[in-house]
């Protein structure tokens, strides 16, 4: 039943507008004054009452009160979050923390300031920093206070040098496979973070997600969000594995199939290897295999080649011949000037002599009138050099090498050379008055008026130091532009790694070109950190265990497990491989940067058998490390 309230005597003139801030104090009693209160809340009637706030006014008042309280709380929190705030009443960093830290970081004692540069900002400057991106980099730099092993480009993509990133991008040959989601994501976001000057740690590592949160986890899509060339999964689109060149040249196929079978004839004293484990030793963490070393693996056959004095040519010792007594000649030789590299570098420290040596390269050998004074000046300089070195010793060599080096930051290599010379007793030989003498590895050959050096063992310190010094000074070799003249160091390095070079080191030790254009000889095993700071990683042990379980193989047949993935190539005829053709075992120049292990590349299909989403997983980070080691190099 509805009843009309219209006859209730509503007086429109006494209508209380909702916008009014004050109402009559007697309104609640049902008998408000006809005049009502003023706009300032004063009673205008004779029978005064206490006007009351209207409903809207009370709501505005409550709103203002709540707003003021909220603002106060915010200011207190902001003030309390700063380490340096003078207005700090209490600690509020626990209040603003968005969640518990991951287990590794929860032990940090310094509090927020250990990781957050913002904690040192005052509340006012904190507000001013909202649109300033520099503080983000400062925060990432705080991460690096503890995580120090990412090298000089820690905050670049992959912690890699820009040059390396550029080279990698230029290697892209894949046709991108993009899902519709990835297409949209690239439209919505700028995926080219690799171009960013700084890629902050928090881009990938999101903290405050709880103790069990894996800070390093990223999805495959997130990994690929920066990459120009993408693919759907390991099984669908991932490129086949490339064969990487080992640091030590060793062709398993030819050794097992040819050399070991014929070692009685080739190397009668040699000890052929029977299984993989004779040379490859599983590391303690089960991740990788270490090589057993030269003595265990190679020495029985190859040490004699290194030490053999008469192999292979008379020029073998050219690198380390040094004129002991300058022979005076009656008439200038018409032979082309050929100074041993070490001697030539010492003489080139004098600019006048360096010019003379250069001039002699261009003057015809028959023009004795022009050549004679130059040759005489070189003879005099050689005599003076001998005296200087006898007096100054190592300091004299250091000074001269420093003068002739192209790389002004090469002091370390020079020191290594001088130290190796000193340890080889080079300066003693220079000072001896004996007619013929052998001191250390040096021998004075009176008939040639020179001292010559002979390596005494594998990994000879002086040979190594000298080759490293040459390599570090190489400018353009071997990719020299057409029409340009190679520098003397380029020529020296070419000679130093030639088949005739003393020690024949680069028969087995490969040479890498570094990003700065210089060369680096790979002397030995890689440092342990190299293996966990490369783009790719592989842990052998669980795979071996799995395959042994699957095939019920005995330990004796473990090498068969190795061969499941490392399948040997069909061996080529002895010394018929491209890299060794036409030489006495030394790689030719054009193949100096290549070698074969004698195995076929690892097949992706073998991995895909298990590494699928619902089996062993196919997350990128299972096989790839994001941060590459600071010493990573691109092998070419």
């Amino acid at each position, binding site marked *: 039943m*509805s009843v009309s309230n219209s006859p209730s005597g509503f007086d429109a003139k006494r209508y209380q507008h909702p916008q009014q801030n004050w109402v009559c104090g007697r309104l609640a009693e049902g008998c408000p004054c006809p005049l009502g209160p003023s706009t300032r809340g004063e009673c205008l009637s004779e029978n005064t009452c206490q006007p009351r706030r209207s409903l809207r006014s009370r709501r505005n008042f409550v709103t203002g009160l*709540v*707003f003021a309280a*909220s603002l106060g709380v915010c200011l207190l929190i902001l003030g309390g979050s700063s380490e340096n705030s003078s207005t700090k009443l209490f600690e509020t960093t626990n209040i603003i923390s968005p969640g518990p830290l991951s287990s590794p970081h929860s032990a940090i004692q310094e509090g927020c300031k250990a990781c957050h540069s913002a904690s040192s900002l005052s509340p006012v400057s*904190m507000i001013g920093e909202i649109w300033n991106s520099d503080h983000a*980099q400062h925060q990432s730099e705080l991460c690096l206070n503890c995580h120090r092993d990412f090298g000089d480009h820690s905050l670049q993509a992959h912690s890699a040098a820009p040059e390396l990133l550029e080279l990698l991008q230029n290697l892209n040959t894949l046709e991108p496979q993009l899902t519709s*989601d990835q297409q949209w994501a690239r439209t*919505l976001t700028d*995926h080219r973070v690799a171009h960013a000057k700084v890629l902050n740690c928090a881009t990938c590592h999101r903290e405050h997600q709880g103790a069990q949160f894996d800070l390093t986890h990223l*999805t495959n899509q997130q990994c690929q969000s920066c990459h120009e060339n993408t693919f759907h999964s390991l099984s669908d689109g991932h490129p086949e594995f490339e064969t990487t060149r080992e640091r030590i040249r060793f062709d398993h196929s030819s050794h097992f199939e040819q050399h070991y079978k014929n070692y009685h004839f080739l190397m009668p004293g040699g000890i052929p290897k029977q299984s993989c484990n004779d040379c490859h030793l599983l590391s303690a963490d089960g991740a990788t295999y270490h090589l057993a070393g030269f003595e265990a693996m190679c020495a029985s056959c190859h040490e004699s080649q290194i030490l053999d004095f008469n192999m292979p040519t008379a020029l073998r010792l050219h690198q380390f011949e040094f004129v002991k007594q300058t022979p005076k000649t009656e008439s200038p030789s018409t032979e082309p000037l050929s100074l041993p590299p070490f001697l030539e570098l010492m003489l080139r420290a004098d600019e006048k002599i360096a010019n003379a040596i250069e001039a002699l390269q261009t003057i015809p050998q028959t023009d004795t009138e022009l050549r004679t004074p130059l040759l005489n000046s070189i003879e005099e300089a050689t005599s003076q050099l001998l005296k200087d070195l006898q007096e100054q010793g190592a300091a004299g060599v250091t000074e001269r090498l420093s003068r002739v080096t192209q790389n002004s930051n090469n002091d370390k290599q020079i020191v290594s050379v001088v130290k190796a010379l000193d340890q080889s007793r080079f300066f003693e030989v220079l000072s001896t008055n004996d007619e013929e003498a052998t001191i250390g590895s040096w021998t004075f050959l009176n008939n040639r008026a020179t001292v010559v050096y002979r390596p005494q063992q594998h990994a000879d310190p002086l040979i190594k130091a000298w080759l490293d010094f040459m390599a570090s000074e190489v400018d353009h070799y071997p990719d020299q532009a057409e029409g340009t003249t190679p520098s003397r160091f380029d020529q020296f390095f070419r000679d130093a790694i030639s088949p005739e070079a003393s020690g024949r080191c680069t028969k087995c030790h490969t040479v890498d070109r570094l990003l700065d254009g210089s060369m680096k000889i790979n002397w030995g095993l890689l440092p342990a950190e190299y293996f966990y700071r490369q783009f790719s990683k592989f842990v052998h042990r669980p795979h071996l265990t799995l395959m042994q379980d699957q095939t019920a193989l005995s330990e004796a047949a473990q090498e068969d497990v190795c061969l499941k993935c490392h399948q040997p190539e069909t061996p080529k005829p002895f010394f018929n491989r491209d890299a060794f053709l036409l030489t006495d075992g030394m790689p030719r120049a054009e193949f100096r940067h290549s070698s074969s292990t004698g195995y076929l590349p690892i097949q992706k299909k073998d991995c895909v058998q298990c590494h699928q989403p619902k089996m062993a997983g196919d997350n990128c980070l299972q096989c790839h490390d994001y941060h590459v080691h600071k010493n990573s190099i691109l092998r070419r």
Partner: protein
Amino acid sequence: MTGAALIVRETLVTPDFLTGWILLAIIVFLAAYNVRKSLPFLPLGTSALWLQIHIYAGLLSFVLFLMHVDYSLPHGLFESLLATIYLLVFGSGVIGLYITRSYPKRLTHLGEEVIFEQIPVIRKKIQTDLDQTILESAEKIPGSELPIFYRDELYPFMMQKPDFVSHLVYGNSRHWRHLLRKLSDVKRFFNEEELNTLAIIEAQLHRKHQLDTQHVLQSALKFWLFVHIPATYSLLTFIVLHVVLVQVWSGGAL
């Protein structure tokens, strides 16, 4: 927008930033509705249109909020406080939506519209009329028990404040139902003249009861804003602090 956030989840750009900034824009727009109501003279579209958009934007904000908090409760104290205030604003908004869509229909069924601020005046008028009716009855019917019945049973009902819960849930109060039973019981003790007077009194009591219902429903229509609007301003304040903290402390997460 939701799809975009899901797609962005597959990149290194965290969807929290995307959803957060969109959520902030929507909340600022939602809060602007209150400002719009204060400035009716500006040609910014009708209030009804604003209200409709306000409702849809409010519902969208909840979806974004869920995505922003990753469908879970925040871990930090401040973020929990912020989420609680948002839920208070959203919840009060949903309740307000229900109230503003259903209570006006109930008010229409009650008869003529009564201005909320005038309810005490009308209630006073009903009481005065009842008093007058009883006085006249006492003079006209000597020895009648009606004034005593009015004093003991009916007057307390007149002076009673509305029972909010009964009116909101049942549309009437238990006191009114109790009173109707009493009136039914005592009618057999009164003569015809007294019954005529009692009918007038009953009609006035019914008006008072309906006025109580008007009061309760209109109070609900107004008082939900006492939560919604202050909580909105509080939310905006805390959001500003949240933005400052996230921008300065997040370490450059994209």
